[in-house]
């Protein structure tokens, strides 16, 4: 078995090339996932870079990214495989008159199989990175569907038998923690909690993502964002929102983050009017008069 990386430090370095700053913890878990051949379950608030982790992982490992976006009502046919029903019908019509035994073997062959992301990930000749995004959105019963893939990298199709992985994918599952995932699923994964970054880390992320930003501006932005996150809000600003905010401030040509410009641009950081009002009140910011 070959591994992608020889040390966690190497992972951090190669991630950095693609603009993702992995702290010691993240790179260590990725390293273990590679070594132990286990999926990573990344959990944390929205917008802290969980999906980005998988995308970067694919780039750094030079693998194709196969993405399964989860949603309520996701089923086998959308996640694993589906028989190409129309093609089967056509085949039946074209072969009218043939004995049944011939036909049956024919229409349940791999030619008639539509591969969906999970099957795609394990049958791919080249190893891939499989991203199962927002796994907490599927129902708890549907989770069972993932288990076979996650622990033995195989899919069982009743008509065809068991298809085993030709190559081992690196798997990342993300969860916004809107519900408790089943024990069975969690047990199979390495757990990685990604929370809001510390001020230093956020500053570094801002600098990596918005290179035009000056050091002092990045530090100031990170600190203001920390203050805002400390308030009791409906939705605290995520890292992606603080990056947006940094871009906004740049575009406005602000060279310092003072109260006036912060108040004017709070809408970039916060997405609920009540949150904006509260932040403006608690941080004593002048708010732009929008006529409401």
């Amino acid at each position, binding site marked *: 078995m070959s591994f992608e990386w020889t040390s966690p430090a190497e992972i951090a370095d190669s991630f950095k090339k693609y603009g993702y700053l992995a702290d010691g*913890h993240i790179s260590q878990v990725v390293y*273990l996932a590679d070594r132990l051949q286990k999926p990573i379950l990344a959990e944390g608030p929205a917008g802290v870079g969980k999906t980005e982790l998988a995308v970067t992982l694919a780039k750094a490992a030079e693998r194709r990214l196969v993405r399964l976006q989860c949603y309520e009502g996701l089923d086998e046919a959308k996640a694993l495989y589906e028989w190409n029903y129309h093609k089967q019908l056509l085949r039946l019509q074209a072969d009218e008159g043939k004995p049944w035994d011939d036909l049956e073997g024919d229409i349940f062959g791999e030619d008639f199989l539509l591969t969906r992301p999970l099957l795609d990930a394990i049958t791919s000749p080249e190893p891939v990175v499989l991203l199962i995004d927002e796994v907490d959105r599927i129902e708890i019963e549907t989770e069972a569907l993932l288990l076979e893939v996650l622990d033995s990298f195989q899919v069982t199709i009743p008509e065809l038998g068991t298809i085993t992985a030709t190559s081992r994918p690196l798997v990342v599952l993300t969860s916004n923690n809107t519900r408790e995932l089943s024990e069975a699923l969690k047990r199979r994964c390495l757990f990685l909690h990604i929370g809001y970054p510390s001020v230093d880390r956020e500053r570094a992320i801002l600098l990596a993502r918005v290179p035009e930003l000056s050091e002092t501006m990045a530090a100031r932005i990170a600190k203001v964002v920390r203050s805002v996150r400390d308030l009791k809000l409906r939705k605290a600003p995520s890292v992606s929102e603080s990056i947006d905010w940094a871009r906004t401030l740049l575009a406005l040509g602000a060279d310092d983050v003072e109260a006036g410009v912060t108040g004017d641009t709070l809408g970039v950081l916060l997405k609920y009017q009540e949150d904006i009002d509260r932040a403006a009140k608690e941080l004593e910011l002048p708010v732009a008069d929008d006529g409401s």
Partner: protein
Amino acid sequence: MILALTSFIEELRAVGVPVSMVEAIDAAHAVAHIDLADRQALRAALAATLVKQARHLPAFEAAFDVFFGTASSPEPAPGEPTIASGAAAASGGSGGDGAEELMAAIAAALHAGDEAGLRDLVRRAVNELSGLQPGRPVGGRYYFYRVMQRLGVDRLRQQLIEAIAVEEALAHRIATEDIAAMLELLEVEVRREVVRRLVADRGPQAVAQTLRAPLLEDIDLMHATRDELARIEAAVGPLARKLATRLAQRRRHGRKGRLDVRRTIRRSLQHGGVLLDPSFKPPRKSKPELVLLCDVSGSMATFARFTLQLTFSLAAQFSNVKVFAFVDALDDVTRFFGPGRDLAAALDQLASEAKIVWQDGHSDYGHAIDDFVAGHLDKVTPRSTVLITGDARSNYRDPRVEAFADIAAEARAVYWLNPEASRYWNTGDSVMARYAPYCDAVREVRTIRQLEQFVEDLILPPSPALRAVALAQSRQ
């Protein structure tokens, strides 16, 4: 290493973090792949394999510091504290000359961001100021607070905050937070050093035991400290969201509705008119109406607050929520709550504006129930679930059970949440047993975990027929 690992896992289980056998094996595998001298790597490996819930991470961190905190200590401790230094520390009141000088050096190290220097200084501070004596069975927290107090950390905080030169509110706030972050660093170091010393003296198991704290969801709400309450309050929000999602999903997928003929035929056209893929109408959603009666006197207020917080986060799950608060009189306070309203502000308003006190401000369940029957009984319909929170301690006044029976007769279901331990019910002035026959369930709800479980059960209530049978049985 395996030995250390198993006792570490035992400790995690003792705190309440579930660790399965498979996870323990994974941890052992993971440990084989890392550099054991690297504490950060060990922490990551164990956290990833053993802890599968973010809210268990603090417990993990605490246990990790105890069991593996010493492993990578860069240099051996500079001698155990002598009895003499301990005694000297004990006699010299708070902040002698040594302490002040040390604190100045620590402040300088913090400003410079000099971690190694800070660690040395903290080591010295714990050595000189903690009064730690080998073999004395005292909890780790005691030594921690002692060092912090004798260093005069709070005083330093004050001084630093006063020294902030900027006037502007935002900049001032940021500067204050910088100071807090800096001092937190110090706090963490001191805590670690104290734990390290204690472990060296008594071994990890014993120390872990004295430091053990219940998980957030198991803290008794009635006896929680202010700090714990704040943490619980922060946790209730996400918890309620989680619960709401789960309940919404369950309702949607509970059963299929009637056959939708139109859609089924439309779909069959794809397959040449064969009815392969029947489609069903989604079932009509029946959402319960909720009538909440909250005892908001004294200690009950805390509990009522969490119930309200949880209820309003779940507002979408109910077709209608009415809230009544009482001490010895009852008032409709629904107007203070609602989507987008701030809970803390609503509770303040409730305390100042609602007419919930009639005579002396001691709980009187009987009078409150009379008030409800007289003024608000029409708000209870066969679709409403009545929820009462309180300890049923009515100060020896008439509980007015007959009036309570009237409410129960109108409602779809009546639940009573009692934040007292069930072994104290019906002692002293508690009249829980008098009301219980008219309730569908009386639950002891002392922790967030129990509250969560109850709300989940509540939203999928028993059918009316089953209820009638159960009630008839309980009254016999």
